[in-house]
């Protein structure tokens, strides 16, 4: 992968109001290829927005380099970076029409006349806003406003397109349809994109690669599938999807497979390469558990949530709560609270980590 944009040991420390040093981003390293769609994902306060704002130039790293096409841009002001940002609050210029909003960056690049008009019209076309040029932002719906913001950013043909939780002010249905549009557009235009979100389904569906962050540190960088199936550590496992952690003992480790003893049951499971024989954690996803009247482990149903297409259970088993999602509720028996059940899980879909 040829590196287009790289973060090298980027660290950002703030002074808290009490005068304490707070490390918002802790020596982050990340290489992004040209045309790639990378998502920064994590809970609020994990440093993802600060990282994005340092790439945009709204914040400046305390240490480290940000390299774009071989040049360190870490200390350049935002207007010298050839990037464009799509904001959570849309940040449209309320006193300018849709047309003038989109033309803003182009005019700053001394574009005018027919070229300007064509570029603006094309940008409006791309985001399905044809004929809305004369309207004011206040006359548009939230979804339309975010389309204008997207068109405004795309129009200047930025080297990197930045998204700061652009869909979180929209309602759920719109969020899904707009994210599909964003992904299609980004693939078609081949524009390098960095997207910040705390919504994992957004991250999973949009990204070439996901960067999971926690407490200022990058926890894992990988493709969505890899992140879900082979999380690096308990945080990632728990943050992406739901995870049950079963305590086990690895009898032997052979590359990417391990033989693990869970409550007397010996299973062959995929594992971290770094796993050593001895005590370990087994990540078991709720949807890989099968409930029934027969099975390896015993448990008791504590809560049942009937969701229509699925049923979610919380079982009391092995002295902890085990979450189960039954995606086959139409055919399976639905259990009640306080029912005694048996359960088993798909070993090839679980993952052992230290």
């Amino acid at each position, binding site marked *: 992968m040829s590196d287009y944009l790289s973060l090298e040991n980027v660290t950002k420390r703030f002074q808290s109001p009490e005068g304490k040093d707070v490390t918002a981003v802790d020596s982050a390293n990340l290489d992004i290829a040209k045309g790639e769609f990378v998502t920064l994902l994590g809970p609020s306060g994990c440093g993802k927005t600060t990282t994005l704002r340092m790439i945009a130039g709204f914040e400046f790293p305390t240490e480290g380099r940000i390299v774009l096409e071989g040049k360190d841009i870490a200390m350049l002001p935002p207007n010298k970076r050839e990037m464009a940002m799509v904001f959570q609050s849309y940040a449209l*210029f309320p006193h300018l029409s849709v047309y003038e909003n989109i033309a803003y960056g182009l005019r700053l690049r001394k574009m005018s006349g027919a070229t300007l008009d064509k570029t603006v019209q094309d940008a409006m076309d791309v985001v399905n806003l044809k004929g809305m040029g004369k309207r004011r932002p*206040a006359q548009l719906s939230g979804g339309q406003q975010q389309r204008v913001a997207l068109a405004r950013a795309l129009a200047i043909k930025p080297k990197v397109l930045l998204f700061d939780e652009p869909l979180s002010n929209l309602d759920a249905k719109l969020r899904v349809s707009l994210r599909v549009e964003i992904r299609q557009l980004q693939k078609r235009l081949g524009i390098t994109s960095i997207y910040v979100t705390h919504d994992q389904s957004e991250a999973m569906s949009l990204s070439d690669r996901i960067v999971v962050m926690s407490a200022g540190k990058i926890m894992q960088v990988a493709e969505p599938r890899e992140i879900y199936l082979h999380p690096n550590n308990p945080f990632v496992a728990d943050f992406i999807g739901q995870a049950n952690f079963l305590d086990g003992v690895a009898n032997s480790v052979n590359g990417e497979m391990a033989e693990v003893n869970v409550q007397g049951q010996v299973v062959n499971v995929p594992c971290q390469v770094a796993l050593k024989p001895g005590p370990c954690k087994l990540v078991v996803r709720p949807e890989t558990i099968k409930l029934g009247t027969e099975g390896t482990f015993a448990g008791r149903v504590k809560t049942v949530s009937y969701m229509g297409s699925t049923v979610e259970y919380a079982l009391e088993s092995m002295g902890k709560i085990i979450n189960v999602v039954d995606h086959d509720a139409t055919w399976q028996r639905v259990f009640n609270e306080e029912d005694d059940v048996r359960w088993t899980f798909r070993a090839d879909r679980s993952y052992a980590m230290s």
Partner: protein
Amino acid sequence: MLKRRAADPVFIFGFILSVAFVGIAILYPLGKMLSTVVSVEAIPYFERFLLRPTFQLIIARTVILGLVVGACGTLVGFVFAFFQARVAAPGWLKKMAHWMALIPVVSPPFAVAIAVIVLFGRSGMISYKLLNLRPNIYGLSGLTLVMTLSFFPAAYLNLLGLMRALDPSHEEASANLGASKLRTFMRVTLPMLAPGIASSFLLLFVEAIADLGNPITIGGDFDVLASRLFIAITGEYDLIAGAVLSVILLVPGLIVYLVQKYWADRASVVSVTGKPVGQHQPVRDWRVRVPILVFISFCTFLIALIYLTILFGAFTNLIGIDNSLTLKNFDYVLNGVGQDAFSDTTILASLATPIAGFLGMLIAFLVVRGKFVGRGALDFGTMLGLAVPGTIFGIGYLLAFNNPVTIAGITVLPKLTGGRAVFGGALAILLVYVIRSTPAALRSGVGALQQIDPAIEEASTSLGGDAFTTMRRVTLPLIRPAFLSGLIYAFSRSMTTISAVIFLTTPEIKIMTQQIYNETDTSRFGNAFAYVVVLISIVLVAIAILSLVVGTRTGAERERK
């Protein structure tokens, strides 16, 4: 060593400019005054002012005046605001009451005082000619009437804003729980307005004790600190006495400021979200409406009467004695002796207006968007220009700028005040205009900027705009209404101010308010009234021109259907 970001040159320039302005025009003269007061020569003055019964009486009178005017003005302001926001009344009546309440804002000091003397004085048109009474209007009663009429608009606007921002759901909740309207008003509405009422009272208190124009016109022998201070400077040429009196005058104002900052602000329960939150039910009960309507009618009638008297007086030989119509007063003001004052004042105010407007917006920008240590101090320093009584700046300027300012033998600033000052002292007056007006522009700028999502400015820089472009094409257009109100305030304030400027006028530079005082002092009321009419006209014309040039809208408003 770490690479440091090169800060935006526009930002740095703005920062240096603001700090220089606050330092030279506000802090330096204040510091000079304070250092005079803590010097050895000042000790006997403190003895004289604080220990002698005559001066203790003056201090007591000052405080009494502040309390009485604070209470009366807040009450009138409250009734006007309540009428405007809550009482069912025809629209034209509300509009009229609103405009009547705003007239005193653009009128110079003295105007109301002289009109009251003409109407209600010993030989007043109403008191003597109509009712055959010979009241003594000079003193506390006259001062209270005049100051209440002059200062209540501030309380009115303050309380009106709060009443409109109150969420009606609190009152609905109270009614829903079974409380009567009166009980809801006493137990819910009034307590929620308490911080606003308190801050209005304090504001009027400070205005009343700092006011100079009214005590020297209608105060009679009811000596207060401000008039004593005036005599000390203009009669006795005793700058140290003036400085010591200034500091004594500053103490109550300072206490009020601290109380306001640490109590009133914190106790405020009104949250301004900018979102419309439904409608208050207007009060229709006649037991409430009738007294309020009578009161409002009486007050608006009084204000109208006063300003009609001024207008009429400007066109008569000697109002109340020789009521024949004449234009000679205007001839005097526009073509005669007053011509210089007319042009000097207008030119200086026109210069001060854009400077104060831009400085206000610039400092507001630095305070709201800047990330440097000390933005609070910059804000505070600028606000001192308004918070400190004008007389104090007058004396501070005399102390600081009567000689050239030199650092290590090099003249940094030439002599700004007194005889042979640069531009005949015009620069000092200009600076005073600017420091008195910038705080209001700053506050409205801060208010407007806080409403603007910082992401909008970031969007501009992200699209390639530098700080200057962003300011010019995005920020300024969005704060245009705030900018306009800052400019309007600056112009009307500069045209009508007297307290600081009265010490700084020179034979070369004449100021209209100073001329009005001279005419009043020598009982040439016709000339004084003509000045007032001309002055108010200039202010109104300027407001119209400014609104036209700057524009009242940002373009971001939703289209009305």
